[in-house]
């Protein structure tokens, strides 16, 4: 399934923030996790993750640090901040509302995909 570009872009921030709540991580690992979570359905252009991470950094949602774990490459790790958690909670509320609204509208229209709209 091809997911619309705008939808991918809109979900990027909450997705990255949610992944970072699992613990600090670096770009490549975050992207792998995105693929894993979406079963490969969400296709990101890899490079685009970095401007996004830098935006989150500027907004104070994440902090960053260069580190070299033993036997690995020097990498830039990102960790979520309290502001980031707050922003994620807010985004969650918004997405829930959107999902619920769509679910209701589709149910009324009588063509609801079964598993949808329970959230």
């Amino acid at each position, binding site marked *: 399934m091809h997911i619309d570009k705008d939808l991918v872009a809109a979900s990027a921030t909450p997705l990255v923030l949610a992944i970072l709540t699992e613990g600090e991580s*670096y*770009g*490549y690992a975050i992207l792998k996790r995105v693929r894993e979570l979406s079963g490969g359905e969400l296709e990101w*252009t*890899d*490079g*685009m993750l*970095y*401007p996004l991470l*830098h*935006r989150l*950094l*500027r*907004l*104070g949602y994440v*902090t*960053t*640090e*260069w580190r070299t774990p033993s036997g690995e*490459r*020097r*990498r*830039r790790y990102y960790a979520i*901040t309290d*502001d980031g958690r707050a922003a994620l909670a807010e985004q969650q509320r918004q997405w829930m509302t959107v999902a619920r609204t769509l679910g209701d509208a589709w149910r009324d229209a009588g063509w609801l995909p079964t598993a949808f709209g329970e959230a």
Partner: protein
Amino acid sequence: MGEVEPRIAEWRAYVEQAPAVDGHDVEELETHLRDQIAELTAAGLTADEAFLVAVKRMGDLDSLSREFAREHSGRLWKQLVLSGDDEPARAVGGWVEPLLFALGAAVTVQIVRLLAGVPDEPPAWLLRNLGLFVLPFLAGYFARRRQLGTGDLLRTAVPFVLAALVVNLYPFRRDSVTGLLVALHLPVVLWFAVSYPYMDTTVRSHERRMDFVRFTGEWLIYYALLALGGGVLMGLTAAILEPAGIDAERVLEWVLPSGAAGAVIVAAWLVESKQHVVENMAPVLTMLFTPLFALMLTVAAVTYVVSGLAGGFDRDLIGVFDALLVVVLGLVLYAMSARDPAQPAGPMDRVQLLAVAAALVLDVMVLGAMVARIGDLGVTPNRVAALGLNLVLLVNLAGAAWLSVRFLTGRATFPRLERWQTAYLPVFAVWAATVVVVLPPLFSFT
């Protein structure tokens, strides 16, 4: 995977050309590329194939660098002037246009001078309108450069028209103190009005506000340099003309006001077009002066605390402290605009915090003494203006100090500090506007 190394190097060199992508970003992207190649080769692809897939997944570099540019406009604008021939950067513009605007300001000042009859002492109305003779040209220059539409042009003009009305319709008395305060504060208000065309009308954007702060700092540096050069030039001119029997003072009377007015626009043009020259200067200046100020302020604060304010405490002291806080705030902003937000806290941040803290201690003491004595000193326009400014600055610096403590202890990020300053900017504008609009009627134009 020896054979892909040269290709990675080639890719890296290509990425490095993108103006908004800096060294750290390239390193980050390269690590990503290498991780991807390693995983793909582990899955059975040849190094060559893995390289191709990894590069493809990274995305095409044009849109990638555009995306970086959108996020890092601060970096990008440094690059505008260094644009290579393949990069269709915003045109910097020729020198004719700024020169015309500078000439406009210079001629206006000259006309006003003639209207005022070239007396020894400039009349009060001239002082009150001073900002209005020069800064509209600066706003006009930016409006031209940013190619604003008609609606935005009108919105740019609104504050200037309102200011002209207020300043000239208020019935100021002779030797009016509030009139003098207006003369001092109006240029500040109008400077903020210039920010509207400067920011291309996106005044809500915190990044663009930071750009404007940066612009202001760099403009000050250029203006000081121009003033120094102009001073030397005029001194020499006077020395040369004197023996020829020409009254040099008469000549300078003409040259000085026009030069000072024109330099406002020329300095702005220099900041816009020769950005990279001055942007190296701001960090050096902060590095030099932050420790010196920190030392001076700490010594002063300790002396005050130990000996008290009893001695030469006079009523003008609050003005001195306003100036001091403005300078400290200037240092903080300079340091902020020159800093890479992603850098962790360093010793310079501590020194700066020391300077701010010492200034705060000093100021609170003076302010306390001042407020305690306001009863016998009486409420005058001057004191209201000075105290108000002091409070506005105090709150700003206290907030900055609090956030920088949190930053140094790792509980806040640097962008949080930046946001505090950019969000606070309107407060300065509002206060200056209050002094211009509200204070004169409050004290019945005396």
